[in-house]
């Protein structure tokens, strides 16, 4: 499989990374080089092989269903580029 500029633009949109036309054009061959290289996995016979889900066997732990964190609003907001009235502030989304 190989990608063209339109597909790279689509992936950039999905990834929320703004890209100029020149950046998209520059990325097309890089992208295809890497994809061409990873596609050698197609030659590995994986019939009947389960995809790996846990690299080291481990039980999924459950904790008690009680509040054990929180009450730290100011600490949470401290690094926000824009915090107002105890909330994260973002550009207006509804006119």
């Amino acid at each position, binding site marked *: 499989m190989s990608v063209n500029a339109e597909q790279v633009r689509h992936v950039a949109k999905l990834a929320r*990374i703004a890209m100029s036309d020149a950046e998209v054009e520059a990325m097309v061959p890089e992208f295809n*080089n*890497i994809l061409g290289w990873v596609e050698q*996995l197609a030659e590995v016979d994986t019939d009947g092989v389960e*995809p*790996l889900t846990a690299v080291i066997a481990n039980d*999924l732990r459950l904790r008690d269903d009680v509040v054990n964190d929180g009450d730290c609003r100011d600490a949470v907001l401290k690094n926000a*580029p824009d915090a107002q009235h105890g909330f*994260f502030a*973002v550009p207006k989304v509804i006119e």
Partner: protein
Amino acid sequence: MSELTSKTIAELRDGIGGGDFSAREVAEAYNAAVAAGRPLNAYTVETPDLALAAADAADEARAAGALKPLSGVPLGIKDLFATEGVDTTAGSNILKGFKPPYESTVSGKLKAAGAGMLGKLNMDEFAMGSSNETSAYGPVISPWKRSDGGNAALTPGGSSGGSAAAVAAGLAAGVTGTDTGGSIRQPAAFTGICGIKPTYGRCSRWGIVAFASSLDQAGPMARTVRDCAILLEVMAGFDPKDATSLDVPVPRWEAGLSSGLKGKRVGIPTEYRIDGVPAEIDALWEQGVEWLRDAGAEPVKISLPHTAHALPTYYIIAPAEASSNLARYDGVRYGLRKEGVKSLDDMYAATRAAGFGAEVKRRIMIGTYVLSAGFYEAYFTKAQKVRTLIKRDFAEAFKECDIILTPTAPSAAFGLGEKMSDPLAMYLNDVFAVPASLAGLPAMSVPGGLDGQGVPLGLHLIGRELDEQGVLNAALAIEERAGFTARPEKWW
């Protein structure tokens, strides 16, 4: 290097405990070394006051007879670890100015054990790189130079390049690193120091900026195998805040150190003999086999049939996980925000365009693509199936051997700029390190010698799950026989 900054962690611990010198003197010597070492660009933030405060606490503890395991040991912390109130940026512009209101579990354990923090260490942006050149702070420069009379600046390796350079240059007694696909072991090899990546789940990932969560592991880097054992004992341990943390006891690795390998079988994987590796590295590998034989081990040939597919598997899985993990950098909660755009969506895209460097964007893009509708099965699921086979290869091999020996990297440290134009050539540098990462196994690099140009080469040991002791012991056997005492000549 002053006398104090050339001591091992074990010597510092014993010297402070025995009253040969004070922790204050040690911290002052290291603070001076860090300041003098700025031309290496190893530190992104210096915290001399924190180092001094921990030293004073250590000296008081000594007076009170209450020394802790690392009282008065000055450490550097990789910039990937959240450190309370101290800039934590993962080497990225998108996190410039981020001061965590909390401390990562691993760095917190080190501090609770009495260690002092000298500062934060430079690294490849979000740990994505093998040369430290993707850092927003510019590359770390290795303290090592080739002996060819030229003055080429060499890479310390990556992503834990600042960590490796700091230890090699005497700017820290020990450091934290993280390893996703070789980021502790390759820089350790490039700079002539030791570094161990423990079994996945040994060290808590809580508070470590996430790159690829199924692969990321913290580990120590230091001058000796013993120092690595000392640090790892403090760093490891169950943490309920990390869902993949292993709830198993932490062995006393330092007390368990023993370089007698009688009865141990050391596996030599046929598939790790690849084209294009310098003869010197193959020769060192042979020498390593002999050293382990001399320690009592029996070498056996083993096969890891899917080795050649490990790197492409890694370069699907790691970018996929990264694309998901790095979705959080949206200009809303922390870090950079690009202002002056109209919509929320434009703000996300502009912020990420401005905040991420080229390699990080490349990996997010690849990861987004292999996870996208229509391609998920062909790339991501396929890679996870091959990962199962790679893990199975090791399980089979460990029926025939107890430890595996390979070179750490396919080359010695290369010059800055030599590989930056070709991402694939850069990725190939982790060819020997990545399989153990994909299988979650403990693995370590230990210095083996210098190449013809006077630059360090490392040997790589891979152990069974949870057998850090076996890895450390084999590394110790090599360390004792290699007699690696070379140090970079101070030019900074």
